[in-house]
């Protein structure tokens, strides 16, 4: 196989990590909304943790981006 084509395919496969991140991100906000609807008074207290979870999950997507970039440009 042409090495350049293999790199492109590899970078494309690296973006599969987004599937997991999508599930995680939906889980965070879905759970938050389910909890907030049941107990609206507690919602502002946990929102900081929701944002933290969002940031940590989003970082995983960006790790995948970094891997894809490394495959495309660095290796």
């Amino acid at each position, binding site marked *: 196989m042409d090495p350049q084509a293999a790199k492109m395919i590899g970078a494309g496969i690296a973006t599969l990590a987004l599937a997991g991140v999508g599930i995680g991100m939906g889980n965070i906000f879905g759970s938050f909304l389910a909890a907030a609807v049941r107990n609206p008074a507690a919602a502002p207290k946990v929102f900081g943790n929701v944002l933290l979870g969002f940031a940590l999950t989003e970082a995983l997507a960006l*790790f995948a981006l970094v891997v894809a970039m490394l495959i495309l440009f660095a290796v």
Partner: protein
Amino acid sequence: MASPLEQFLIKPIVPIKIGDLDASFTNSSLWMVLVLIGVVTFLYVGMRRRELVPGRWQSMAEMSYEFVANMVRDNAGSAGRPYFPFIFTLFMFVLFSNLFGMIPYSFTVTSHIIVTFAMALVVFIGVTIIGFVKHGAHFFSLFVPAGCPAWLLPLVVTIEVISYFVRPVSLSVRLFANMMAGHTMLKVFAGFVISLAGALGVVGGVVGILPILLIAALTGLEIGIAMLQAYVFALLSCIYLNDALHLHH
């Protein structure tokens, strides 16, 4: 048209050569100095008058102090109190470099992995030293979770050791990748406007308003991300510090 990655180019302003070492004063150094001046001005001028009823500026300075002080107290306990100045410095530096990066035509210091990795490595090495000074060889029990079955220990300890040494990498890559990806995304969307106008002429110029509106919204998101990532960086430093101060609890 310039590449979206061109904004991360480091240009020497005052070339300094020490032997083979290139120690030039670059645009990165310039923005680090500006960030430093920004933080010092923000805190010093804000607290200069020390009024009992704070004005807007003084209350911003007090809020940033209280925010980090609460974070250290909640996550590292009272034993983390001596390390508050370090965490506060880290937080303010990362916050101001992220926010200064949002100024058009500026340079984002934290969008370079070497800068964030240096900070993460300082946290990592410092926390490890604190752990050894506080607990001696007992510090190694950090890698052995309590209540773990004996037959599972070799696997768990290996995973714990690896996850401990991956900490500086994940801490630095998280901040760097967020900043790099955000700024690249803004530039890519900005490029759409020019491509549209180039491809479709006047119609493209009118349709180009849409990407501009999107950039305005994304800039708001990026400012939020800038503050969130500074918070996450400082918070994870606190959590690592807590691990070293109180081994298991």
